[in-house]
Each structure stands twice: as C-alpha cells, then as structure tokens.
C-alpha cells in the first residue's frame, strides 16, 4: 500500500514550483491578460526547459517515457499559478491520442516536436451548435485524392497563440474523424473572441477550403469519436490535478489572510464562520486530490474502474474548485472583489474548466454508464418488455 507520489515526482514538483515562484506566480497570467504574449511565451519556454513537455512522451521520440502520474505534480503546479498555455491540451490530450492511435511517422513528427518544446497543440472542437456531443461535430471534411478539404467553423478554441497544431474533429462521409491541422494552413482564419477568463484567450476558427493531406488523419477514418473519448480520459484526469493545485493555493492564501485580517478586534480566522468554511474547503481539496491521484493511477494502469474514477475526479474537482474559489472571495471580503488581488482569477478559471471539453452533466451520465447502472436499468426494461 503506497498511495502517494514518489520521490522523483515530488522532486520534479519542486523544480517546477521554484521556477514558477521565480516567475512571480500569477504574474505570467497577468502578463497574458495585459496582452504581453511574448512574456508568457518566454515563461513557457522556461517551463519547457525543465522538461515538462517531455514527461509522458516515449523515449523513442525524445521524451522521458514516463506516465500519467508523473504529470500530476506538474499539473498541480500549473494550477497553483494559473499558468497560461496549452499544456493540458498538448500533454494530456494530443500526446496520449497520438501515442495511442497515430502512425510511427506521425509520432516521429508530432511527439518529437512537442518533446523539444518547439510546438504544441490545442483543440478545435466546439461549433456553433455549442455542444460536446457527437452530433455537435458537423465541420465537413471531404476526402479526395489523398487530401481532406475542410469547410466550416470551430469556436472557443483556447490559446491558439501558444499552439502550432489544432486537433480538429471533423465529419468525413457522415462519420467523425480526427485531423491535425497546422494553424498556418491557407484558408484558415483565426478571430479572437472575448472571453470570461482572461487567462485563456479564445478564438473562432473559420475553415474555408482548407486542404490537409491524408497523413494528418489520426487513427482510422470514422473512429474519431472513440479517439476523442480516450483523449478526454487523459484530459480529465489531468484537469482534476490542475484544479487541485489551484485549490491548494487558494486555501493557503485564504488561511493566511484569515490569520492577519482583523475585525471586531479578532483575526477573522477565529470566527467559526470563516474557520469552519476553511476546514470544509480543506477537506474538499484533499478529497479532490485523492480522487485525482487515483484517477491518474487508474489511467496509467488501465484499471477496470478508470472511466468512473476519472469522471468522479473531474466532476468533484471542478465543482470543488468553483465553490472554493467563490468562498475565497467571501473570506477576503471587499478586497476579494477587486481586480487587484488574485481571487477573481481563480473564480474565472474555475468556471472555465466547469464545462470545458464536456459538461458536468455529460460526465455524470458517463460515470453512471460506466458503473453499469444504466445497463442494469436497460436489462430490466428489456426484461419487462419480454414479460409484457
């Protein structure tokens, strides 16, 4: 029995934390808000130099060949500082599906480029239908003469500025397939969208007869929905870690503030309204952490219960993050309501993850289904059908 990160993982965490502390933590996120993309790119370069992007890339493609659990401390640290960028989209979505479904040539290209920190991915999924369902994928790709021609629109694509490639779910002959598109391909137009969470820059992407070689197809034609589901498992395990890191930071800051801020001659942390709220927050944090560790372990070991474990971690952690970020403002009082201190940045990010790459309700359904509770019902319904 050993339910903890190992020493190497904790050591890696220390490096990342030290580096991000040197970057003055949320200052990078604030640079991004201020439009200083170059400063952010520099900070990301530093992160890459630590090897963060190499972690889960196989040795053969210049990576470290480590697993999902090794990403956990990194993701937590990114969460602590609300680090801008497409780490999640790249390391926890693109890399795993490429690793699992792509050809050797594709791996050679994409994974090596990621490992070197040269290039990164983001995900162009949502369309004007605004839904993460299979039906919501309508962007049409016509396959002729070894190339796809894409026409349509994607929306709310995150942080294209830091990504070279887009993972684009498309519809080919009525079925979903996954294509990697270079953002500089002719015919592709990127338009910035105003976003709620200013630490994530959203864009609409218009595809006007964008042609892509068939070599950009990931996995077999028509298997796209299944591939996305695999990508989501990795992503959701990782995003739960990001949320854990963010909550950890919030609770540190809020506890500290509760010790120094006085009203009615007492540190506010002495009032049980504040004190017990913080205790509840801490319990939620540690529960989210346990669930997220386990989710990543289940993913790494392809444990039988990995789907329900990952959905649980995702639902619990994102929900707890939303609540804790909100409590943090109340604990801070008026000052927490200003742009000046970081409280609001955490609130905004928490809401960003809430329904990003799938709604909470969808994950409830997925977990219920994975636990066989649907099946039991269906079996029973079927039985009734036979009887009546």
């Amino acid at each position, binding site marked *: 029995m050993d339910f903890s990160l190992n020493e190497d993982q904790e050591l890696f965490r220390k490096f990342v934390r030290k580096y991000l502390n040197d970057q003055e933590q949320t200052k990078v996120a604030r640079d991004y808000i201020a439009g200083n993309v170059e400063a952010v790119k520099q900070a990301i370069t530093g992160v890459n130099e630590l090897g963060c992007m190499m972690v889960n890339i196989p040795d053969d493609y210049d990576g470290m060949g480590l697993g999902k659990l090794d990403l956990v401390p990194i993701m937590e640290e990114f969460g602590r500082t609300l680090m801008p960028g497409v780490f999640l989209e790249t390391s926890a979505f693109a890399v795993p599906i490429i690793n699992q479904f792509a050809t050797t040539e594709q791996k050679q290209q994409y994974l090596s480029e990621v490992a070197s920190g040269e290039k990164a991915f983001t995900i162009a999924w*949502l369309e004007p*239908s*605004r*839904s*993460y*369902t299979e*039906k*919501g994928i309508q962007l049409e790709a016509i396959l002729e003469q070894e190339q796809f021609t894409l026409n349509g629109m994607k929306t*709310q694509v995150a942080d294209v500025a830091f990504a070279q490639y887009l993972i684009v779910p498309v519809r080919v002959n009525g079925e979903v397939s996954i294509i990697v598109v270079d953002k500089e391909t002719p015919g592709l137009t990127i338009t910035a*969208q*105003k*976003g*709620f*969470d200013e630490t*994530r820059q*959203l864009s609409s992407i218009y595809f006007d007869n964008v042609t892509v070689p068939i070599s950009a197809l990931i996995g077999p034609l028509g298997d796209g929905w299944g591939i996305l589901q695999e990508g989501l498992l990795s992503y959701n395990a990782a995003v739960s870690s990001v949320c854990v890191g963010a909550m950890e930071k919030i609770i540190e800051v809020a506890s500290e503030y509760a010790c120094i801020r*006085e*009203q*009615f*001659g*007492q540190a506010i942390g*002495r*009032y049980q*309204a*504040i004190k017990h709220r913080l205790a509840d927050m801490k319990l939620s944090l540690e529960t989210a952490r346990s669930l997220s560790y386990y989710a990543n372990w289940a993913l790494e070991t392809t444990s039988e219960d990995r789907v329900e474990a990952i959905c649980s971690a995702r639902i619990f952690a994102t929900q707890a993050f*939303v609540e804790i970020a*909100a409590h943090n*403002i*109340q604990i801070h*009082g*008026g000052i*927490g*309501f*200003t*742009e*000046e201190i970081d*409280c*609001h940045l955490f*609130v*905004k990010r928490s*809401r*960003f993850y*809430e*329904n*990003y*790459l799938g*709604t*909470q*309700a969808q994950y409830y359904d997925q977990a219920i289904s994975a636990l066989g509770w649907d099946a039991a019902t269906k079996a029973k319904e079927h039985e009734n059908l036979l009887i009546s």
Partner: protein
Amino acid sequence: MDFSYTAQEEQFRQELRTWLEENLPEGWLASQQLPSEEAELGQFLRKWQKTLADSRWAAIAWPEKHGGRNATLMEEIIYHQEMVRVKAPPLVNYVGLHMVGPTLMQIGTPEQQEKYIPKILTGEEVWCQGYSEPNAGSDLAAVQTTAVKKGDKWVINGQKIWTSFAHFADRCFLVARTSKGEKKHHGITCFLLDMNQPGVEVRPIIQMNGEHDFNEVYLTDAVAYDSEIIGQVDDGWRVTIALLMHERTGIGAQVFSLEQQFAELVNVAQTVTEDDQPLIAKPEVRKRLLDLYMNQRGSLLNYYRNLTKQLKVGHPGVEGSMDKLFVSEMTKKLFSEAISIQGHAGMLWEEDAVQDQGYWQKNYLYSFGQTIGGGTSEIQKNTIAERILGLPKDVGR
C-alpha cells in the same frame, strides 16, 4: 390576505409608467446602454436625475415642499417595481436622495437643510458615503480617519474605501474619529465634507468584472468647518445609524430585480440552444430552474410579508436582515446557475457572448459583491441569530 393594489396605487403606477415611457433616455428600452466613457457617464446620469427631479420623480418619499411627493410606503414599492421593470438608469445621487437628504431633514440644522437639500434633489451636488475603511469593514465603529480641530477648521486625515460614485461626488457624508472614547463607537463625528478640495483624492477600484463603481478616498489634511458637522461632535454614532435607517423599502429594488432576472433566465433557457435543442430541454436545467424559482418566489414573498408588518407597525423591522441575506445569496446563485447552464458557451464575454451581450457573465462576477457590501452575509446571520432568535453576542463584541 390580499395582494391587490388600491385604485389610488394603481393610478400612481400608471402615472409613473406613462411618465417613464415619455421621459426615459432615448432608445433606453431597447438597449439600456450607458456611456462607457466616465465623464460622459457622469453627465448622462446627472441629466437623468435632473429629469426625474423636474417631475418630482427623484425622491418621491420626500415632503412636497422639498420636491417630493410625500409618497406612501406602497408608492415607494411601486416606484421600485416600475424602475426595475424598465431597468431605469441608476440614480447617481442615490446616497443623497435616500440617505443624506432624509437625515438632514431629521437632524440637520435649518441652514444645512436649506443649503444642501435642493441640490441633492436635482443632482447638482452628488453625495457619497464615507463610512468603510480598510480596517473598518464589517466593524464599522473601528474607523480610524481622524478629524482634529485647529482654529475654526477641522483637519481630516485618513482613508475611506468602497465609496460608490465618489468619482462623481461633490460632497461626502463622512464618519471620522474626533476623540478616543471609552468604547470604540464613542468619539465619532459626522461631517458633510466638500469633495472638491485639494486634501481629497479619489482613486478608482476596478472590480473583478472590469467595471468601476467604487473608490478609495484619501484624505490628507482635508478641511471641514463646524457648520459642516451634522449632529453633535463626538456623538456621531447615532447619526451614522440614523443615516442607515432611512432606507424604508430595504432591499426591495433587489428583490424585484431578482424576480425579473429569473424570468429572463428562463427565457435564456428557452431560447439558447445546444444541438438545436433549447437548454430547458435538459432535465437538469429544468431542475436547477425550479430550485431558483422556489427560492426567488420565497425571497419575494418574505419581502412582502415583512412589508406587511412594516405597514402595520410603521417602521422597518430587523427582518430586513433576512431579506438582505436571502436576496444577495440568491442573486449570486442565480447568476452562477446562469453561467452553468450555458455550458462552455458561458465563457464568452460581452459582444461575443451568445446572449444579452454577456449580461449574465458580467453580473455573475458583480454578484460576488452583494454578499459583502451593505453588511456581509456573516454579519446578517449574526443579526438574525442575536436580534431575532435571542442568541448571545458574538466573540469580540
């Protein structure tokens, strides 16, 4: 039990409604667009208040001699309902009209009344309220701003915070410490401070939704005169409280706003689609909306019940703390749900939002202030527990 309005009340409503239709700023009903530039906004709001005042719609509860209508409580309620209905522009001199004016009428000297009241009504002089300080939030009596008598002047130093509309204000109803009393709410004095002087510096506070409603006010050897003291020197705590007591409709305006916002949210759920289905087609959205419905109805009906009591006994009761707690928490909840039900599309902002130019997103962020300003939810709970349920005083008090 009777939810109807008298013929006279209905006539009042109709008169106001007709007047609003004719006098709201041009194009207001269609878009409710306020000028984004601050100086322009100030002008716009002053002009709106002047328009109201000219027709005696600015301070209806004031006596007729001061330009009011001597309105009944029910007329004030109707006034709020109608203003919410058209989402009327805010009153730039809200503090003057609802707090300072009535306080002056109650305890101001005849000279003070004559000097200040007319300009409050027209918006010629906009007032702000100088209560909160960095270390005196919930604990209002802990004010540290000092006023020291030097010759015929009072020299004032300190810092105020959360001062709404201070950037438009000409005068401030300022609470300062003039002596160190035995208890901390002794030795406080209230000043009617001129904001247009060198010793007063106003710095904006930018809220988490990117807007600017509040300010810090730095006082560095600012000056006030004896004639600008309201009430007695060192006896300002009572004046401070008196000012806060003049809001006889309590949080009525927010209650009616919440009712309207809920209806609008249902409309969002019925019109915004996901996969060509309205959001309300999802069972969990309907469930969330019903929870909001029950609570929104509850907050409105609680308010009516407290109002009924007030109509009978003649003054607002401590139950107002329940109204404040509930409507502020519910407002937060409503806007939070508004974000959730939109799915990831709820992360779009302003003109890129799928609905109402991002109204829901912006107000979600703004709503965090509701459970802090005007007495935090924690303070309201203390009040409910101590003053309604009779529990012992909190630690530290």
